[in-house]
Structure formats: C-alpha cells, structure tokens
C-alpha cells in the first residue's frame, strides 16, 4: 500500500467509525442538555440494539447475504423495530432509575446510571452469552474502487461503508431538522436552556424528557444494528467500549451541544484511525484521551460548547 492509499484508507476508516460514534454521542449530549445527567447506561442501550436486531434477524431466519427487495425490507423493517425497542428501553431506564431522583442531588442519578449500566451488561451476558457473537453478514460487500471503477488499488472501500454512512448521516440530518424546526424540537431546546421557564410557558417538561430519552435510545439502537451489519461481530461489553468513546466525543464537542456531539464523534473517529494506522492500536486509547484532556485544558466547555456557568 502506498502512502497516499494509506491516507485514503485512514479517511474512510475515520468516517465510518466517526459516523456511529456520533450517533451514540448524540444520546449522551441530548440527555445531558435536558437533565444534566451522564446516562452511563447509554452505551449499553447501543449494545441492546445490536442484540435485539440480531434476535429479530434470527426470527426471520436470515443467515447469509441478501439481495434485491428482501435486503431493504429486512434491514429497514428490523431497524425500525429495533429503534422502537431501544427507544422504549431508554425511556423505561429514565422512568425507573432517574425520574424518582429528579430533585435529588446530582450524584444520586449518576450512581443509578452506573448501576443501570451494569444491569444491562449482565442482561446482555445472560441473554447472548459471554463470548464474541457472530452477526449475519446480510449486506453484500462489493469492492467499489476495483469492481466499479476498475482501479487497481489496495484501498478497501465497499458498499458496506457506503451503506453505513448512508444510514447514519441522514439520521443525523433528520435529528438536526427535528430539533431546529419542529415544535417538540424547540421545546427540547427551551427546556435545556431553562427548565422552570419552559414549564411556565406550558411545556410539559416530563414529556420532553421522555421524548429525549426515546430519541437517544432509538439512535443508539440504530447504531448497534449498523455496527452488527458492518463488523458482523459483537459482545455484551461492546457498549462499554463504544460508550466510552462516544461519551468522550460528546464532551470533546461540548456536552449539551448537538452539533458538537457529531463533530466530536468524527474527530474521535479520525484520531482512532490515525493512531491505529501510524502508531499502533495499543496507543489509540492514550491518544484519544490525551487529546480530550488537552482540549478541555484550553477550552473547558469543549469545541462547540457555549454553556455559561451553571445557574444557581
């Protein structure tokens, strides 16, 4: 592989990793924006998205690569159901573990969040076992540069990469439009900026919080399924790893800021790819967290964070 091929490969890897990290990071940042809580169980909701979609594919008896209309019906059907499930699960997590503590000191729901995370991880382990699980390779991997354009290159870029981006990026666009344009989206922003004033304007704040958890969970579920289709493997602890990176992305971008979470996801994605390529994967974690620390030292609110000091 030549240097330029390596670089192009790195860009591709960065974008694919960044795409699903961004999708998970959105859930962290949206929940934090509204109730100032780090939902540590969020990464595990992503893991459940992987497991739930795997189970539905099992029901449908899908094992190998599909084609034609079957491919799209199965993928989007299962994805919709998965997103609905993980959205409802995330809402339930809020109902059980955070809502009773809405007026408690901030440390209390943080602890229940960690507890929820452990519970979901154990649930995943009991459900699908402790070892690495295979996910059916449904989506056909067609080598685009060589097969379509007849280039003779070592760069690996397949229809799977296109598919991953083609699902995650539109989801982010739809979310952004939802938050900017719709009445509910505006109510979410209003509630994030001043919860009491939002209630005084007739906004049902609890309803806004439920919606936020639902959307975050649905996006995490979509990410879980996409990763299954893309990497074809996963494990009950996958939510911890991805969650840590996605949470880092959210903080790097400025927690509470939706655009920041997406930007952070891609920055972390690229950092990962660069470090994997030019250093070694063992160093990647160190590089990612060093960058996070450096950014926070010089700009504590994160890249796009504009949070003013907390109101009293």
């Amino acid at each position: 592989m030549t240097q330029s091929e390596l670089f192009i490969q790195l860009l591709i890897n960065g974008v694919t990793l960044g795409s699903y990290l961004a999708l998970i990071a959105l859930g962290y940042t949206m929940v934090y924006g509204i109730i100032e809580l780090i939902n540590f169980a969020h990464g595990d909701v992503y893991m459940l998205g992987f497991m739930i979609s795997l189970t539905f594919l099992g029901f449908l008896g899908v094992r190998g690569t599909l084609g034609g209309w079957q491919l799209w019906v199965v993928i989007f059907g299962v994805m919709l159901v998965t997103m609905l499930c993980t959205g409802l699960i995330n809402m339930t997590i809020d109902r059980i573990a955070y809502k009773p503590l809405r007026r408690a000191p901030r440390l209390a729901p943080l602890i229940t969040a960690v507890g929820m995370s452990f519970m979901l991880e154990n649930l995943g382990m009991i459900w699908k076992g402790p070892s690495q699980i295979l996910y059916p390779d449904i989506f056909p991997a067609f080598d685009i540069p060589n097969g379509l354009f007849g280039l003779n290159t070592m760069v690996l870029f397949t229809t799977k990469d296109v598919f991953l981006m083609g699902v995650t990026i539109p989801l982010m666009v739809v979310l952004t439009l939802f938050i900017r344009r719709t009445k509910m989206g505006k109510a979410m922003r209003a509630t994030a900026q001043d919860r009491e004033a939002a209630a005084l304007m007739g906004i049902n704040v609890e309803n806004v919080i439920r919606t936020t958890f639902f959307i975050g969970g649905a996006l995490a579920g979509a990410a879980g399924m996409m990763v299954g289709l893309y990497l074809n493997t996963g494990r009950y602890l996958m939510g911890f790893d991805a969650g840590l990176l996605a949470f880092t992305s959210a903080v790097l971008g400025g927690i509470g800021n939706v655009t920041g979470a997406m930007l952070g996801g891609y920055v972390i994605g690229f950092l990962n790819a660069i470090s994997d390529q030019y250093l070694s994967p063992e160093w990647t974690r160190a590089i990612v967290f060093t960058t996070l620390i450096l950014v926070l030292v010089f700009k504590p609110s994160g890249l796009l964070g504009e949070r003013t000091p907390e109101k009293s």
Partner: protein
Amino acid sequence: MALLELANIHTYYGNIHALKGISITVDKGEIVSLIGSNGAGKSTTLKTISGVLHPKEGTITLEGRRIDHAPAHEIVAMGICQAPEGRRIFPRLTTVENLEMGAFHRSDKAGVQEDMERVFGLFPRLKERRTQQGGTLSGGEQQMLAIGRALMSRPRILLLDEPSMGLSPVLVETIFQIIQDIHAQGTPILLVEQNALMALQVASRGYVLQTGRIVLHDTATHLAENEMVRKAYLGES
C-alpha cells in the same frame, strides 16, 4: 365569583414557611398589584399560582375551578401565564421561537399567528429583532419579549413579576404604558412590583405583603395615601 381567588394559601420551601395564609382576589377587568420588599413572598405567591410550587394549605380557584394541585404546564393551558422575575427568556432561541414557546399548548395556527402580530404591534422593537437570539437582546427588549411570550398563551389573566427590574426610568415608563395597553385590550393583570409608586398608579387595587402575610389591602389610591405605605415603599421619611 372572582376570576382568580387565593384563599388562605400556605406555601413552604422545604421547612421554610414562606406564605402564611394569603388571600387575594383578581376580578375581570382589573389590574391588581402586589407590593412588598425583598423576601416578602411576592414571587413565591406567583410561583404558587403558576403551579411551580404547590400550597400545603388553602385553595386557588380560577373561575371557581380548583387549580392548586395542577402541574405548571396545565395551568398555562387553563389560562394563567406569567412573565417571571428576571425575564427568563430562552437565550439561544430566536425572538420568534421564544414567542412560539409561549403558545406551546395551542394548536390553532392561525390564532397563534394573529397573536404574534398583536405582540409585534405592542412591541415594534421585537419585530425588528425577530430572528435575533434572545440572549443578545438588551434588558428592555428581553422584558418586552418575556411579556410578549406570556401573552402568546392568550391568557385569561396575566401575571407579571417585577417587570421594571433593572430598567432605565424611560424604559420603565414604556413598559408600564404597555401594561396599561394590555389591560385596556381586555386582559386582567396581577402585577408584582417593588416599584410601588408605578404599580399603584396603574392598579385599581393593591395588596401589601410582609414576611409572608398580607398586611394591607385597599384601593390603589388609598394605598398610595397610606402613611405606612408611603414610609416603607414610596421612600418618604
């Protein structure tokens, strides 16, 4: 039957007994002002009416209907909206978006549009700033936005908490003129003010609140002549 009636309201902040048996009425067509010094319980009274706080004792009725245990967002839908102390506009929402939030519970799009034009009629400055973020507006403009936002819910009674706070004398005049305009257009107002002089000029009746109790209740003209009021709140020695 009074439009809004508070009867023997007791409200607590944890263990602190903030309101100790308050009774207030506001009738249709009135501006009623609630005056008192810092910490007397004026804002607590409005928060209790709005459902942010709930009374431990006593009843609040809107046209005879009990509202004291309804959540804040339902109270807005029933017809009570307030421009809270410190304005509390949404700093990273535009002027128009802030106004839309005031109309959150409404689904009559045409009516909302009509009311937005009405608010822009009352506050032409807001129209000029319609796409600007709330946080970038000046203090006076923010107060106008807070009042306009509350009007967007088409309230049957409007609560105003310290609308003159932190504004220059000229702006205070403007705001009070607009308060009278809103009243003339048919919306009753419960006005909380530290600026007792201005408040008693526009109000028909007034209540004086001291450490969680109503100590005086009279017509605004009588209150303005009352010796204790003049000493304590109108700055006369």
